[in-house]
């Protein structure tokens, strides 16, 4: 392994601009003549829009224009869409309600947009927005997904607010297995609604060039080409070749910056109307009521076991709250990204899962780090842990009895796991966490009046999204391949143009490591280009832990083509047969001789083209690959959480965290660990702190960082992170991906640990001090002071 190749903990190239304050995030971009957009948002959860009076607002200082939903509708702009078709059990398609970017007839959630002020400064926009008078005819609202079907109907197309009633698996076979079971474990589980809160708020900056009839959008997006496609083909804002989307540095996404939102559409429309660039920068409390939320499932789950603790079947019924409108990928998250992981690491012969997705008067819900897999892992790992307790079997032992041991393994829920060794990660985690010493630590803690608990989460997930035909057959409207162009310059330096995008993952470093090792050229001589639809060929963006498995595989395929062509050039230069050329460590050699040509000379010759006839071999050295993966990848591992609960306050301290993950091939262990740390932190946030709470009138009570509890440094421990490795058979590098695993594994480990400590399962997330204390009181009333 070289110091800058695959497997090296290379320090990041991108850091220089970030640590010196020279990053270029979307709000840092300033266009001449720029105006600022300030949105007028509904303060009500459900209402018809009567009149909107903008006359006073228009007269305010600095105001360029004030535009409403009616103006928007008059210009016949298309609606926002959900791009993944899901069918109900009865074969009917999902009920996708119209979602105009600016509401004209009615609003469906607090934060829904009804008008936009375009002003010279943000302050002037804010002042004018306050003068916009909107007549609302209030309608009753419904916010609880469990009550949605009997609540007031929100959209004409969806009776009982039901979007779809979907299922996966063989219900009859599952019923039969349950009937024959020796033991059944049942749980009611709420997966709490979360808000991504990337520290950079969303921004959209739109500019129209009337001379070229060209629209440009700078946007905090994880996938500029997908945004461009949706905004041109579906929303109809401009033909695709007349729309450029640029994602500069993006300050975190976690899924929330995948989707196509109203604000960027309105900014594009307004920019053309007012003839000046229009920039919108979200306030944080604005983000709370417009950025897609995550999770929000209510689930009833059952696990059937035989007398030896062998899993026979699982039955799951989930209600998924998708919010007021269907966001871009929303339909897939509680279906094909959720139910397909219910087998966990276990050999479970039969699984049946029903999911009802509903509308409520809340912010739309879509993918958030893990997207469906944290929800699935929580269900599985809570069932397993509780079953172990009910059967008085050691939780590690119960897992071992049921682990899948041979591969490939076809689960009853579509996924076919191709490689793994779940015993290896469990074993290493048990050692690292010193589980043997736990009982003594528990006794010592009890002497100090503290309750210690241990919780496991042996998770698996499916990522490296995704094989196009497979997801197409499941209703996805796009393919999920990835693209790469490797451009060798005449002077031998290399640019890699990737259709992925980085918002913290370090691609400028890791992709360069891959190329450096493969071509034997210095790491410094390689640039990675992404995030601009004018520069880079179509790509699907970054989410679903796909940039390594899919994005890097595309680079490998392009490098294969580069090597093949470079060998042809070298053959001409060295007057040898192409088949005799060997390429190693940046040098082309004629086999069995000392005749060689260096990389730099070959690159130059490819472009000078003096040594070969253009009819035999085209000049240039630039190759593209569009790589379609053959399968999902299946990272898996074991997390062990040890907690200490204060009996008097209910406060939980995480005293130790062990994570042992199998990500297949690792490009940069430092970056992989960072991804695991960040994922665990978000999972602990879900388990202990975070919850997006609505009151019954649809007001978002947790409407800012004052009330929505984000994890701070003092809420978290340091993490012990280790690896095992079984390479992914489905891509040339053997990479599985690591971006979401921490967030997928961790909530179950935390709740398993706390419930172990307090001796009751009657605990929901977030397990705040009050929630834990209340659970203790309910379980052991004799402990009341």
């Amino acid at each position, binding site marked *: 392994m070289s110091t800058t190749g695959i497997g090296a903990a290379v320090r990041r190239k991108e850091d220089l601009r970030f*640590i010196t304050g020279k990053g270029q995030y979307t709000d840092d971009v300033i266009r001449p003549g720029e105006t600022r957009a300030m949105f007028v948002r509904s303060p009500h959860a459900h209402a018809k829009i009567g009149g909107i009076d903008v006359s006073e607002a228009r007269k305010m200082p600095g105001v360029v224009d004030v535009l409403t939903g009616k103006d928007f509708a008059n210009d016949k702009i298309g609606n926002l869409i959900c791009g993944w078709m899901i069918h109900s059990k009865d074969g009917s398609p999902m009920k996708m309600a119209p979602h105009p970017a600016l509401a004209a007839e009615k609003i469906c959630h607090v934060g829904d947009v009804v008008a936009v002020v375009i002003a010279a400064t943000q302050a002037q926009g804010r002042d004018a927005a306050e003068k916009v008078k909107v007549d609302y005819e209030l309608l009753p609202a419904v916010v609880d997904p469990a009550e949605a079907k009997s609540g007031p109907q929100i959209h004409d197309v969806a009776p009982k607010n039901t979007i779809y009633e979907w299922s996966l698996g063989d219900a009859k076979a599952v019923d039969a297995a349950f009937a024959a079971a020796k033991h059944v474990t049942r749980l009611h589980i709420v997966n709490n609604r979360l808000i991504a809160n990337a520290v950079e708020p969303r921004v959209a900056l739109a500019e129209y060039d009337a001379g070229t009839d060209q629209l440009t959008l700078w946007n905090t997006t994880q996938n500029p080409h997908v945004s461009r496609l949706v905004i041109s083909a579906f929303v109809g804002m401009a033909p695709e070749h007349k729309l450029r989307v640029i994602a500069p540095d993006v300050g975190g996404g976690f899924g929330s910056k995948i989707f196509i939102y109203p604000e960027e559409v309105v900014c594009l429309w307004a920019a053309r109307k007012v003839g000046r660039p229009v920039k919108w920068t979200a306030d944080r409390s604005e983000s709370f009521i417009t950025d897609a939320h995550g999770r929000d499932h209510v689930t009833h789950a059952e696990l059937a076991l035989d007398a030896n603790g062998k899993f026979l079947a699982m039955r799951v019924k989930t209600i998924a709250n998708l919010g007021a409108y269907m966001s871009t990928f929303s339909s897939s998250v509680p279906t094909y990204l959720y139910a397909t992981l219910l087998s966990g690491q276990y050999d479970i012969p039969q699984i049946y899962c029903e999911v009802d997705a509903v509308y409520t008067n809340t912010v739309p819900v879509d993918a958030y780090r893990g997207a469906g897999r944290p929800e699935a892992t929580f269900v599985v790992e809570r069932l397993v842990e509780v079953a172990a307790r009910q059967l008085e079997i050691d939780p590690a032992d119960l897992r071992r009895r049921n682990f899948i041991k041979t591969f490939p393994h076809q689960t009853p829920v579509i996924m076919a796991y191709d490689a793994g060794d779940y015993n290896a990660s469990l074993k290493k985690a048990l050692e690292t966490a010193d589980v043997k010493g736990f009982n003594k630590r528990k006794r010592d803690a009890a002497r100090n009046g503290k309750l210690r608990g241990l919780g496991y989460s042996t998770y698996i997930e499916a990522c490296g999204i995704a094989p196009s035909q497979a997801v197409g057959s499941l209703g996805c409207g796009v393919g999920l391949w990835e693209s790469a162009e490797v451009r060798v310059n005449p002077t031998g330096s290399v640019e890699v143009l990737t259709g992925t995008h980085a918002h*913290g993952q370090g691609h400028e470093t890791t992709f360069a490591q891959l190329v450096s090792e493969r071509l034997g050229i210095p790491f410094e001589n390689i640039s990675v280009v992404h995030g601009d639809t004018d520069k880079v060929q179509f790509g699907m963006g970054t989410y679903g832990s796909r940039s390594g498995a899919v994005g890097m595989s595309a680079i490998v395929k392009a490098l294969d083509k580069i090597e093949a062509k470079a060998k042809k050039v070298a053959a001409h230069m060295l007057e040898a047969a192409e088949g005799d050329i060997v390429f190693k460590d940046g040098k082309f050699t004629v086999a069995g001789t000392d005749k060689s040509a260096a990389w730099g000379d070959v690159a130059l010759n490819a472009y000078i083209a003096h040594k070969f006839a253009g009819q035999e071999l085209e000049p240039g050295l630039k190759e593209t690959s569009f790589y379609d993966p053959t399968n999902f990848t299946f990272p898996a591992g074991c997390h062990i959480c040890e907690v200490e609960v204060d009996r008097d306050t209910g406060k939980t301290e995480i005293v130790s965290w062990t994570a042992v993950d199998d990500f297949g091939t690792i490009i940069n262990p430092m970056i992989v660990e*960072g991804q695991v740390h960040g994922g665990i932190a978000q999972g602990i946030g879900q388990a202990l702190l975070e919850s997006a709470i609505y009151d019954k009138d649809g007001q978002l009570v947790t409407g800012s960082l004052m009330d929505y509890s984000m994890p701070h440094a003092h809420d978290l421990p340091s993490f012990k992170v280790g690896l095992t490795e079984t390479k992914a058979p489905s891509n040339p590098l053997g990479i599985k991906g690591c971006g979401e695993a921490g967030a997928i594994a961790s909530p179950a480990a935390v709740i398993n640990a706390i419930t172990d400590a307090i001796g009751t399962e009657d605990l929901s997330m977030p397990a705040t001090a009050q929630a834990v204390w209340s659970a203790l009181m309910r379980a052991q009333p004799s402990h009341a002071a």
Partner: protein
Amino acid sequence: MPAVSMTVNGKAVAGDVEARTLLVQFLRENLRLTGTHVGCDTSQCGACVVHIDGIAAKSCTTLALQCEGAKVTTIEGLAEANGPLHPMQEAFREHHALQCGFCTPGMIMAALDIVRRRGNDLDEHTIREQLDGNICRCTGYHNIVKAIAAGAKAMAKGGARQAAE
């Protein structure tokens, strides 16, 4: 509009601002120093931390006019142009204490203030407690804690500019 003048990163600057203009807006929009970031509207996230007369402050909760005559240091002022990086900046890179980079300027400025108040020998518990005013969503803080401890030690070895007085 009232006028305001101050020193930012060693340079005298002036501008006309509305009374309600925040220091972070003055820095980003008037001076085009976009290294200081806005991440929230309730003073929780810390992406806006700068130093005012040598002490860390949240520039989102400070009016530009409050800084009349003050010496302000932003992330852009830590290292000399074309000079070496500040040891705390180096420590953040060395220990992978940033991913998306958005919280990083405020995090580094806050870290320097921890050193000012608590010295160069910082333990994990102290650092975690002292970071109460800074939110990172990417790193889980594990590497930030390591970086701050290392940066504090490196600062003790001298040879680098401390935060401006």
